[in-house]
C-alpha cells in the first residue's frame, strides 16, 4: 500500500494571550495508507481537531510538513478531499437539494446528485430548510456534501457526536459503504466502539503528542494480556484472600477482577464459595486502552 498523506514533525502553537502559549500539536508524525480508515483518538483538548484541520489545509502549521501524494497541500488536495467538520453551518434559507447543488458547482468532477441522495438517504427531506433537519439528517447531508466531488480522501471530525444509537449505526453503515469503494477515511471520534468498527489504523493523542499507534488488535494485544471477570458486588465478600494477587476494581454494583488465567481465578472463587451467578467474562476493549493511556482524571 502507498501513503496518501504523510505527516512529519507537525507542530502547532497558539498564543491566546501575551503570557500564554499553547502547544496544541507537538512534533507529530504519521502516515495514512491509501484505502484505509485512519482513526485519531484522544481526550478533549488532545489536539485531534487541530491536527485534522492542518491536514485539511484549514489551519496553517507552525512547523513540520504535510504531503498529499508526495506534494504539499494545494489545488490537487482541494479537488480530491471531502471534508465534514465537527460543527458546520450552511447558509440560511437553503434547502437540502440547493445545498448539494451549490457545493457541487464548486468542483469540476462531481457525483450525480441522485446518487448522493440515494447513498445518504436524503430523498425524504430534499426540499426542507437545512436549519429544520434532525441531528441524524443534518449529519447525512453534511456527509453527502463531503462526498459531492467523489473524493479520494474523506475527513470526518467527530461525525456521530450527539446522535442517538440508531442514527449512529445508520451513519456507520454509510462510512462502511464509503470504505468499500476504496476511499481513504480519516476519522476523529470519542466513541471507541466506532473506532473499533471502522478504523484499520489508530493513533492515540494526548497533550498534543502521539502516545500510541497501530491497528486496534495490535494496540490491545501489545497493551493487555489479561481479561476482565465481572461479578455482582453482593456475591463477593469484601476481603477475599484469593484475590489479593489480582487487580480489583469495585463499583456500586459490580466488581471487576483482572486476570491472566481465567481457570485459576474461577477455581479460587469457587473454592471460597463465591456464587458465579451473574458472572461475565470480557476481553479488553479500546475503551479500557483509552483510560489506561490517558488516565481517569476529568478533562476540559
Amino acid at each position, binding site marked *: 500500500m502507498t501513503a496518501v498523506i504523510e505527516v512529519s514533525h507537525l507542530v502547532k502553537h497558539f498564543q491566546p494571550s501575551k503570557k500564554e502559549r499553547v502547544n496544541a500539536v507537538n512534533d507529530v508524525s504519521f502516515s495514512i495508507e491509501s484505502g484505509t480508515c485512519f482513526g485519531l483518538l484522544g481526550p478533549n483538548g488532545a489536539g485531534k481537531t487541530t491536527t485534522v484541520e492542518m491536514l*485539511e*489545509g*484549514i489551519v496553517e502549521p507552525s512547523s513540520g510538513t504535510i504531503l498529499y501524494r508526495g506534494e504539499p497541500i494545494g*489545488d490537487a488536495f*482541494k*479537488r480530491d*478531499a471531502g*471534508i465534514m*467538520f465537527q*460543527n*458546520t*453551518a*450552511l*447558509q*440560511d*434559507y*437553503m434547502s437540502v437539494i*440547493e445545498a448539494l*447543488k*451549490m*457545493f457541487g*458547482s*464548486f*468542483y469540476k468532477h462531481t457525483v450525480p446528485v441522485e446518487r448522493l441522495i440515494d447513498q445518504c438517504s436524503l430523498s425524504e427531506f430534499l426540499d426542507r430548510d437545512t436549519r429544520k433537519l434532525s441531528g441524524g439528517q443534518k449529519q447525512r447531508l453534511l456527509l453527502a*456534501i463531503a462526498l459531492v466531488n467523489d473524493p479520494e480522501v474523506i475527513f470526518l471530525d467527530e461525525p456521530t457526536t450527539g446522535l442517538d444509537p440508531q442514527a449512529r449505526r445508520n451513519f456507520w453503515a454509510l462510512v462502511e459503504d464509503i470504505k468499500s469503494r476504496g476511499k481513504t477515511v480519516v476519522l476523529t471520534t470519542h466513541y471507541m466502539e466506532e473506532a473499533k468498527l471502522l478504523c484499520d489504523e489508530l493513533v492515540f493523542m494526548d497533550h498534543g503528542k502521539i502516545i500510541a499507534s497501530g491497528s486496534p488488535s495490535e494496540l490491545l494485544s501489545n497493551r493487555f494480556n489479561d481479561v476482565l471477570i465481572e461479578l455482582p458486588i453482593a456475591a463477593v465478600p469484601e476481603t477475599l484472600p484469593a484475590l489479593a494477587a489480582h487487580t480489583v476494581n469495585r463499583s456500586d454494583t459490580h466488581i471487576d477482577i483482572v486476570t491472566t488465567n481465567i481457570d485459576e481465578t474461577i477455581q479460587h472463587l469457587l473454592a471460597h464459595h463465591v456464587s458465579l451467578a451473574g458472572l461475565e467474562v470480557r476481553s479488553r476493549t479500546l475503551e479500557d486502552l483509552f483510560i489506561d493511556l490517558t488516565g481517569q482524571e476529568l478533562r476540559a
Partner: protein
Amino acid sequence: MSLKHFRAVFMARNREFIRDRSSWAWNIFFPVLLIAGLAVMFGNDNRSLFKVGVYPASDENESFFDTRHMQFLPIENLTPAIVRVQRHQLDLLIDTTAKRYWVNDTSPNGYISEQLLLAKTDASYMREIVTGREVRYVDWVLPGILGMNMMFACLFGVGYVIVRYRKSGVLKRLKATPLAAVEFLSAQVASRLWLVMAITLCVFFGTHFLLNFTMHGSYATLVLVLTIGAIALITLGLLVAARTASEELAGGLLNLFTWPMMVMSGVWFSLEGAHPMIRSLSQILPLTHIVDAARSIMIDGATLFDVKWHIAYLLVFSVFCVFIGAKLFRWE
C-alpha cells in the same frame, strides 16, 4: 475567477435575502412609511411668517419693512436668492437700491407679500416675475432617506452577514472547497448591489408616483450616482467584515460608521450653517456625496458633469475599501 462558482454563491445569497421576510419589511416598508409620514407631517406648511429677502438691506424710510409677522432676511447675492423665490423658499425678494422685486406668480404667499408691499410703499418698484414649483421638505429629504436606507442595507447586509457566516462556520466550510475568496466576495457584492438598487428604485418610483417629487435632472444620472454610492457603501461593509469574528464587535463597528453618516451627511437637515470642521468631516463620509449629488440632480437639475467630484470621491473610496478589505480578509 470562475463564473460558475460566482453564480452559485450569488444565487444562494439572493435566495437567502428574498426568503427572509423580515428583511423585506426593513428594506421596503420602513422607508416608504418614513417618506409618507414626512409628507403628511410637513405637507401643510403653516408658517405664520412671510419670508422676504432684502438686498442689500432694508430701506429704513419704508414702512413696509416694519410690517409685523413678516421676516426680512438680508441677502448678499441676488442669483441664489432668485432661485429660492422660484422654489417658494422666499415669498418675495426686494432689491432696495435698484427698486426691483421678484415674486413667484404661483405662490399664494408671494401674492399676499406683493400686495402688502404695494399698499405700504410710495416708491415705484419694478416687478419681476419668476415661476417654479415649490420644493417641499419631502422633496429635499427624499435623497437623504434613499441614501440612508441604502447605507443600512449595504453595511449591515454585507458586513453583518459575512461576520455571521464566519462565526457560524459557513465560511470555514466554503474555504475547504476550491471556491476562491475573490469569487465569494464579488458574489456578495453583486448580490447586494442588485437587490439594494432594485429596492431603492422601487421605493423611489413608488413614492414618486404618490407624491410627485421635484425632479429637474436626469433619471439616468440619478441611478448612476445611487449605483456608485451603493458600491462604495458595500465595500465599506466588506472592510468592516474583513476579519471580524464577533457579531457584537461588527455591530459596534457598523454603528460607528452609520451614526455619524446619519447625523453629518445632511440626511435630515442642511449642514450649510454648521461649524466648518463638521462640514469638512462630513466630506469624508460617502453618504454625504451620495445625498448631495442626488439632491442636486433632483432639485437643481445638476448634470453628470456637475456631480463629477462626488462620483470621483465615491469611486476612490470604493477602491480604497476593496484594496484594504482584500488585504485583511480571512475566511476564519
